[in-house]
């Protein structure tokens, strides 16, 4: 018995991946290793999400999210600040640019909201001190002559809140009027200055946060 020609056979008898076509179509095919790494990353994140409740407390998890969001903002912005304001015809580049500015703004908001409503009360300590300085970082700093870190912490919480306001404005401007930003030098300078200011505010707040976490005990995160 001879099989009919390939075109008439059911799909399951034919190889699922056709022969690669030359030129642009070949370059657009996603390599297998990239697909595998994406699946592995997603599986790892899913596993981490399942295991996280068994590894850390709620306060620690929120603090990790706050720190990660702040790092995301600083690194994402620093790595592509100048490129964000360009205009290009590449569809992939435009999507990457939009996702970067949206991610930066979202990361900034997540960081400040988690910090204000979850991390800051833990830093300030309870209204009725428990007597354990290790559980109340602010009292610990004042008791050990490190009040300057408390002063820097109050600066951090205000400077950090400048970041989402500025980065959200930049994100909306890039999403909505990228062509105007790219073609008008004065407008590009305005958006660029605010982008730098927003990233600078995030960087300053992150740096102070790192310092406070090194100087003050972290027992309050139990």
């Amino acid at each position, binding site marked *: 018995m001879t099989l009919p020609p390939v075109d008439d056979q059911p799909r399951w008898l034919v190889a699922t*991946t056709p022969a690669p076509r030359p030129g642009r179509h070949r370059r657009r095919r996603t390599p297998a290793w990239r697909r595998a790494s994406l699946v592995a990353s997603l599986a790892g994140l899913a596993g981490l999400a399942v295991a996280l409740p068994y590894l850390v407390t709620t306060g620690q998890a929120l603090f990790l999210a706050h720190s990660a969001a702040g790092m995301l903002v600083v690194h994402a912005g620093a790595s592509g600040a100048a490129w964000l304001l360009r205009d290009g015809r590449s569809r992939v580049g435009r999507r990457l640019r939009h996702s970067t500015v949206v991610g930066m703004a979202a990361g900034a908001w997540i960081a400040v909201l988690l910090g*204000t409503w979850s991390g800051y009360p833990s830093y300030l300590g309870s209204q009725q001190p428990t007597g354990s300085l290790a559980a109340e970082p602010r009292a610990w700093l004042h008791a050990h002559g490190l009040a300057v870190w*408390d002063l820097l912490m109050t600066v951090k919480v205000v400077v950090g*809140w400048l970041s989402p306001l500025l980065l959200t*404005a930049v994100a909306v401007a890039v999403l*909505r*009027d990228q062509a105007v930003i790219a073609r008008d030098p004065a407008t590009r*300078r*305005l958006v660029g200055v605010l982008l730098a200011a927003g990233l600078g505010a995030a960087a300053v707040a992150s740096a102070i946060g790192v310092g406070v976490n090194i100087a003050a005990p972290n027992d309050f995160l139990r």
Partner: protein
Amino acid sequence: MTQMPPPPTPRREPDWPVVSARWGVLEQRSGHQIAGVVEDAGLLRAARLLADAPTVRVRGVYVLAGVMPITALGLALAEVAPLWLLTGVLVVPTTVLAVQVGRRWPGWGRRGLVGLAAGLVATAGYDVLRVGLVLAGVWADPIPGLGRLLLGSQAGWWVGYVWRYVADGAALGLAYVALPIPQLRSGLAAGGVVCAGLVGLLALSPNAQANFLPLTWTTAAGAAAGHLLYGGILGSLTRRWLQPPVPTRFPHPLPRQTASTPALTPHPADGGPNGAVVAAMLAAGIGCAVLGALTLLVAASPLAAAALSYSPTRGPLTGTTTLAVLVWILAWGNLHLRWAPQQMNAARALALVAVLVGIGLVGALGCGSCLMPVGDAP
């Protein structure tokens, strides 16, 4: 003898080869599946057309401003949050936005005023029925309690009535006139929907019954009659007073340069005006300046620090940041509505934004330990 024509080939559903852009694999779909895809595309296109309609955003603002007061009242009656807080957070910003929209597009502003007036008259008609039932002893008058809910026990009886007429009756009239599809707009249906919401709230929340009105068959029937009367009056008045809205583009195109703005730079050869971008940047600067100013105020005044301490464990930071974000949103909406179609002087805006962000930084650096919660000394 003529040859018999060949039998017709059996008709089969064509296989439509579809190249999947995602995986680059040649897939085959049936015509039935393609028909479903085409129908989905048509539905999505209809949704897109509705979203792109020039009046959707204006109508949305009016509807939001109209339903927000009664929503806030419902949440307060259910003891979700204090009414004064909900008024400041929900009602005031949406009201300001609606006022700005009405000033920006006078045609819609006049339409809104017609809605407000019709709502006031309809509420008066509702009260003729309701006060009659109160005087007849059928039910108690719960309206003065709204004033106490808003301003505390010292509020007079008239405060509740002001809220009822302005924030409930007139605002719902504003929302009513902004509804699309005039042929389907029915005052009776609108009154019925509001009554259903009230009855549902009382049924679901015992706190609401304690704070407002106990839910019995008598009160439910009275409320239904009153709301249907309100809706009927509202519908008939608006049908008589309203003209069909003139379609306007959003945003409305304005001349690029006016006598009051001599500093406008020439329009670029390619690309649109930069007014929206400048508005966003300037609004961000205003938000930063407000945050810095409030931080300095909190440092200078313990009374302000206490007033802005929305949370005892977080101190005045919650109040300063909340107010700064609200001002930012309001400023952005206002500036965007005014400047979006214009070409603005970006260099001058940069200087102004730098000053505003500088005020924010000064507030951050100069506050010292001002954000310490009141009563929580180390």
